[in-house]
């Protein structure tokens, strides 16, 4: 990897140029409670010091909450076409666990068959990550996802008077040479970087004990009492899934215009926490209770992909914890699994 530094004064210049030259998406204060990743036209709107994790994860840029997969026109012939728009965009200011979330989706949507609607956008997306102190609910350290090894073009770390820049791709390097004044990172910079990372890692308040989770999870899986307790307050509202940077479930539906000539196949975010998710013909539901569903979600987050990809899909960003009004907490529940099996 290439390591560089950029001075704070030059940083502003750099980002402002990107904002004027590209479709630039970054964190903006939305209201008293949250930030959102939206298009930015003016440097002053950018606010990288967001405290919460921002409700809608950046996945929405690549995998929008509703999108048209294909379009068709019925006449003499039936014409079918894809319609996804794909523009060069810069996604700025997502933190390490979100970068890891994106990497997960990259892998997921390319596993086996490639999801073109996703990748047509991904290929044109430049990701500039930035380190920030963990929020209250962030436990990415426990999940091994507090640091992004790849999946970005540039990754910035704030070293007070300058940014330490990890250059993750040729594209990222190109941007730097075209738009920024940088210098190669030296010993001093690395020292400060290490100091920052140590403090950063020490700042995680929420921890999840994932040791032996892979096996323990199977052990508690059929323990109805355990799940009853865990899921007691769950509304089956699905918020946890929709805010998750690595949740990918969707529904597909056909929508015909009233003229009955043109139609779309649309996909929209779905959640395994809502009852319909497992419903099939004959009104049989494979996951009829909220307990079934919650443990399904946990399985998907903290087990399934350990099998499939060798690493869990949960990046520990803590969004689901913030979003859950029933105060269901995945990190604490991971700890409960451990406790249940240890006692």
């Amino acid at each position: 990897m290439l390591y560089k530094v950029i001075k704070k004064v030059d940083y502003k210049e750099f980002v402002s140029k990107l904002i004027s030259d590209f479709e630039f998406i970054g964190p903006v204060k939305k209201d008293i409670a949250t930030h959102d990743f939206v298009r930015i036209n003016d440097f002053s709107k950018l606010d990288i010091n967001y405290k919460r994790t921002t409700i809608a994860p950046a996945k929405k840029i690549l995998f929008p909450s509703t999108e048209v997969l294909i379009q068709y026109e019925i006449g003499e012939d039936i014409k079918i076409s894809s319609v996804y728009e794909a523009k060069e965009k810069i996604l700025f200011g997502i933190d390490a666990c979100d970068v890891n979330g994106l990497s997960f989706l990259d892998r997921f949507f390319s596993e086996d068959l490639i999801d073109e609607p996703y990748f047509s956008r991904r290929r044109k997306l430049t990701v500039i990550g930035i380190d920030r102190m963990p929020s209250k609910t962030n436990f990415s350290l426990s999940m091994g996802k507090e640091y992004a090894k790849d999946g970005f073009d540039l990754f910035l770390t704030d070293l007070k008077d300058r940014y330490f820049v990890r250059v993750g791709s040729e594209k990222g390097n190109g941007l730097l040479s075209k738009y920024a004044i940088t210098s190669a990172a030296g010993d001093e910079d690395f020292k400060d970087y290490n100091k920052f990372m140590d403090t950063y890692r020490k700042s995680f308040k929420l921890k999840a004990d994932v040791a032996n989770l892979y096996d323990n999870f199977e052990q508690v899986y059929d323990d109805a009492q355990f799940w009853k307790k865990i899921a007691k307050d769950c509304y089956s509202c699905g918020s946890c899934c929709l805010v998750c940077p690595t949740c990918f479930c969707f529904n597909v539906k056909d929508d015909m215009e009233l003229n009955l000539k043109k139609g779309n196949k649309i996909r929209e975010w779905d959640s395994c926490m809502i009852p319909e998710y497992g419903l099939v013909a004959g009104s049989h539901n494979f996951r009829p209770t909220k307990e079934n569903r919650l443990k399904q979600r946990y399985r998907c987050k903290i087990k399934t992909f350990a099998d499939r990809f060798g690493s869990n899909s949960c990046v520990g960003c803590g969004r689901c914890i913030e979003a859950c009004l029933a105060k269901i907490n995945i990190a604490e529940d991971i700890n409960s699994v451990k406790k249940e099996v240890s006692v």
Partner: protein
Amino acid sequence: MSKPKVGIFGLTGCGGCQLEILNLEDQLLDLIHAIDIVHFTEAITEHSDNYDIALIEGSVATRHDAERLEHIGKIAKIMIAVGACACTGGINCLKNLYGVEKAKELVYGDKKGWIDAIETKPIEAYVKVDYYARGCPPTRTEIVDIIKSLIVGKVPEIPNYPVCIECKRLGNTCVYDLGKTCMGLISRAGCGARCPSAGVGCEACRGTIDDPNVNAQKDILVKYNLTVEDIMEGFNLYNGCKKIEQKIK
């Protein structure tokens, strides 16, 4: 079903649902080509007693309403309840909470005998309802979706998940985070999370999802320093006929 004959009828309500149909603007002309509107008091003079689909707005609040509804029910093959008043009784049910006789007395005094008013009920209390376009008012998209589905021959997809899903799809800040309360957790989505999007808690004008976790709602309320009564007040607004409070123990 090709070009079905459709009647649009109003019982006791505010006319907003019928207006929502007139508000289709971009789609109104397509709609008129796709279906044959044979009855629509609010918009057209011609009327006919020959229709396949009846869209009913408003709740049953007089004997006259009940008679008309039963008459329509005998003719129409498909009955669609449009709007909270027709689906759940809607805001009209507040009258029941107050008491029909008492309400007559309060408003009409000694002339109350002139008034034909009975306990408010949703239309399903009198006729079999096939589909519900819920909400106060329902969204035009949903009304159109139901009609479209019937034309192309599919079951209309009415969400049975809570409003939170739509909030999250839209990227809304949860109104609990704005320091207000919201019924969205147990209310049926399909409105496009209009209220939370406007910074106001959901008032459950589309009723609840099939299996709401109302007990959790109670627990949560305590966490947010609220009581069941607080939330029931809100819930009664559109669901006074449903007596959901009996579910909350």
